[in-house]
């Protein structure tokens, strides 16, 4: 499923400006989407939309790609090499802080998946217990700020927390007892795997301890892309919503589509993904709003919190970082 | 020191007196610090101009160890871009003449010292060129083999009218082969001495014991001894 970069570049070029109404006879409009990570349950709606023909119905030909590094998706969408990308809400704001012209189009997972995790038999029950303990995290300053906020909100002393950068290896860090807690693992992935491997962990939701209830996963496009391909993106959102509706109604079928797709190259663990989807579906639900809807208040809160923690330069407007098409 | 076309001159002198160095200068490998070198009467300028025009056989055989004897012998023609289908046959023929028939495909390390020397000699002959510089070409050969080489060299030289400059420590050899012999002084002080060999040609091995020959040889030895005592 790889395509020469030329295709991606051409599809976002101005010459391919949106055509008012795409009749089925017209050739499908090509869109490339870069995931945040490799395909898993959270992406079921995309594969469902693909498989069920929702994209095709909208006259879209969507190609899904994977990044080398989570930040690559943001950079490449900003550079016009892909049209859409999945990223994290705080990351979008921080990207704007670095003059990377991207905007969120939709909130996919509306709540944090990154929880603080401690071994099930640990003496740590709430963030304030972390004083004097080692916390493993994956060299992302954002996670430092989250833990400090949590400890402070819980009445502890954030300066007494001992941070250990554990690079890529969150699971070994906690399962071999190198650290007392980890920050950066997902409740729908690492937690389930640790459980399965016999190292059950408890998770502590940062949103409950002073961290804004941010969206873990958002759909992102570049400012320029939104200018030139607004219509295609609108269609994409429509197909995406249809896909998510399908996942909600037929979670087992949707999962089967994902698993079948992945079997061709790298089979997924069926049990883990099924549990993962169960965890995810409520967190993706936008209630009475359509799937993907973004709440300006959430963006303001995240922007404020990032600024307070020195992760965002002044002058970054929350309103510039997202758009509800 | 002038060497006439078609002449055969020898250079003798104490070990380390600079004979090999002289040949290298003539071949164009080193630049002389004083004097100039004329080819056919015109100043040849820097040594680089002479490279490629003079056949040179170094004191060490310098056969390329990764090439067979035959491939070593055709190397000069390969370099000059004159290798043809007949080249190998010619080299084989010459190797046979020096008693190396059957060793064409051997590698140099499989040969005895004298055999390597003969192979290097063949390589030099293949070089062509009017002037041939030979640095102790037969030093590692026994008297018999050496005699065969002498005979062949004289024959070649007689036919082709090539000019030969020849370094040797074997005074008999020098007297037998040369028109003239140059004596190189050991120190930097002495001057080059010249000795004319007035013996008639064609010469043969039997001359070794003739009085003229013996006296020439003794004279040469005496003079050498003198240059050294200076």
């Amino acid at each position, binding site marked *: *499923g*790889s*395509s*020469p*970069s*030329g*295709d*991606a570049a051409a599809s976002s070029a101005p010459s391919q400006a949106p055509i008012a109404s795409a009749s089925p006879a017209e050739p499908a409009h090509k869109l490339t989407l870069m995931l945040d*990570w*490799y395909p898993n349950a959270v992406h079921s709606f995309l594969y469902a939309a693909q498989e069920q023909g929702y994209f095709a119905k909208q006259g879209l030909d969507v190609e899904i*790609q*994977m*990044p*080398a*590094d989570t930040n*690559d998706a943001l*950079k*490449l969408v900003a*550079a016009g*090499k892909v049209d859409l990308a999945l990223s994290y809400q705080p990351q979008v704001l921080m990207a704007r802080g670095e003059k990377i012209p991207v905007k969120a189009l939709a909130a996919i997972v509306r709540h944090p998946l990154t929880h603080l995790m401690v071994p099930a038999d640990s003496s740590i029950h709430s963030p304030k217990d972390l004083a004097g303990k080692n916390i493993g995290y994956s060299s992302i300053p954002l996670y430092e700020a989250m833990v400090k906020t949590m400890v402070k909100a819980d009445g502890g002393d954030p300066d007494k927390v001992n941070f250990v950068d554990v690079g890529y290896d969150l699971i*070994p860090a906690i*399962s*071999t007892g190198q650290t007392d807690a980890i920050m950066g693992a997902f409740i729908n*992935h690492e937690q389930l*795997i640790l459980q399965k*491997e016999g190292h059950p962990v408890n998770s502590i939701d940062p949103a409950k301890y002073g961290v804004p209830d941010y969206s873990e996963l958002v759909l992102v496009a570049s400012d320029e892309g939104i200018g030139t391909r607004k219509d295609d993106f609108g269609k994409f959102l429509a197909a995406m919503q249809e896909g998510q509706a399908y996942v909600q109604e037929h979670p087992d079928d949707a999962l089967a589509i994902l698993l079948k797709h992945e079997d*061709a*190259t*790298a*089979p*997924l*663990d069926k049990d*883990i993904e099924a549990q993962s989807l169960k965890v995810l579906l409520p967190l993706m639900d936008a209630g009475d709003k359509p799937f993907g809807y973004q709440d300006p208040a959430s963006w303001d809160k995240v922007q404020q919190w990032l600024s307070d923690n020195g992760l965002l330069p002044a002058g970054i407007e929350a309103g510039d970082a997202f758009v509800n098409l | 020191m002038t060497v006439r076309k078609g002449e055969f001159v020898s250079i003798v002198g104490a070990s380390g007196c600079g004979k090999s160095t002289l040949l*290298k200068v003539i*071949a*164009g*490998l080193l630049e002389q610090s004083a004097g100039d070198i004329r080819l056919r009467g015109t100043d040849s300028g820097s040594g680089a101009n002479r*490279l*490629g*025009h*003079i*056949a*040179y056989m*170094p004191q*060490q055989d*310098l056969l*390329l*160890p*990764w*090439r*067979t004897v035959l491939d070593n012998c055709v*190397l*000069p023609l*390969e*370099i*000059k871009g004159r290798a043809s289908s007949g080249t190998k046959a010619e080299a084989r023929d010459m190797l046979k003449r020096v008693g190396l028939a059957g060793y064409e495909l051997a*590698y*140099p*390390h499989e040969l005895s010292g004298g055999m390597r020397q003969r192979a290097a000699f063949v390589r030099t002959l293949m*070089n062509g060129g009017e002037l041939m510089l030979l640095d102790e070409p037969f030093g590692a050969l026994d008297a018999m083999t050496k005699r065969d080489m002498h005979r062949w060299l004289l024959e070649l030289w007689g036919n082709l009218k090539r000019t030969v400059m020849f370094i040797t420590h074997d005074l008999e050899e020098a007297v037998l082969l040369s028109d003239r012999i140059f004596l190189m002084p050991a120190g930097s002080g002495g001057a080059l001495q010249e000795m004319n060999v007035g013996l008639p040609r064609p010469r043969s091995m039997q001359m070794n014991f003739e009085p003229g020959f013996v006296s020439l040889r003794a004279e040469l030895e005496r003079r050498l001894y003198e240059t050294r005592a200076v």
Partner: protein
Amino acid sequence: MKRAPFNELIHRSGAFLLLLLPVLAIWEAAVRLELVPSFILPAPSSIWTALVRNAGLLLGTHLPATLEEVAIGCMMSVAGGILLGIGMHLSRTLEKALYPLIIISQTIPLIALSPIFIMWFGYSLWSKVAVVFLTAFFPVVVGVYDGLGKSRGAYQELLLTMGASRRQLLLKIGVPLALPSFFSGLKLTVVYCVIGATIGEWLGGTRGLGYYSRRMAGSLHSAEMFAAIALLSALGIALFLTVRLLEHQILKKRGTY
């Protein structure tokens, strides 16, 4: 002393396998006795099981993809390395300009460049080939450059008297003398090609043993991950032995010095 190349191979690998057994036994025991958690280092037996279970996918889909990248990347590394080595040997200016750039290319973590590769090459084969090249070309450069820089001693003088040009000196003495050094570099390069392909597949794409191993690592399927790595290692050893055999064949034919 004389053995056919194939027998030679059997003979060598046979001895290795014999010596591998105790290593595998200790490893297996360590995992079974839970001295090492199996999700960190799976037992050889479970790696083998994973290999057999996924044989179709591994050998049918991923191995060919990786082989293609390795083959093309390797040829480019060798060709590029030789050209760079010769170029730097021939021109001091080129050498001064290029050597630092080459060293810079070896000290930049490739992951930092991943967006650049994707920008330039997209998700095509060529982004992976580029990574293989960057990972693997350096030893050939050093091998060729150092090999050609060896003193050619008196042979050079001899060839000069025959009127040899610089090109001929290079071909007739430089290259034969440089061969051993070149082969040392080549052996390193072919091994690095394998890890280069692995890293290249991490940058994106949907096939290849490196891609597979990364995916499996992400879901903590350690046995599957190590099964892919075992295949990669086997590929590396095969390439190394091939070059070594070639080296023996070529250098053995020549006379010793």
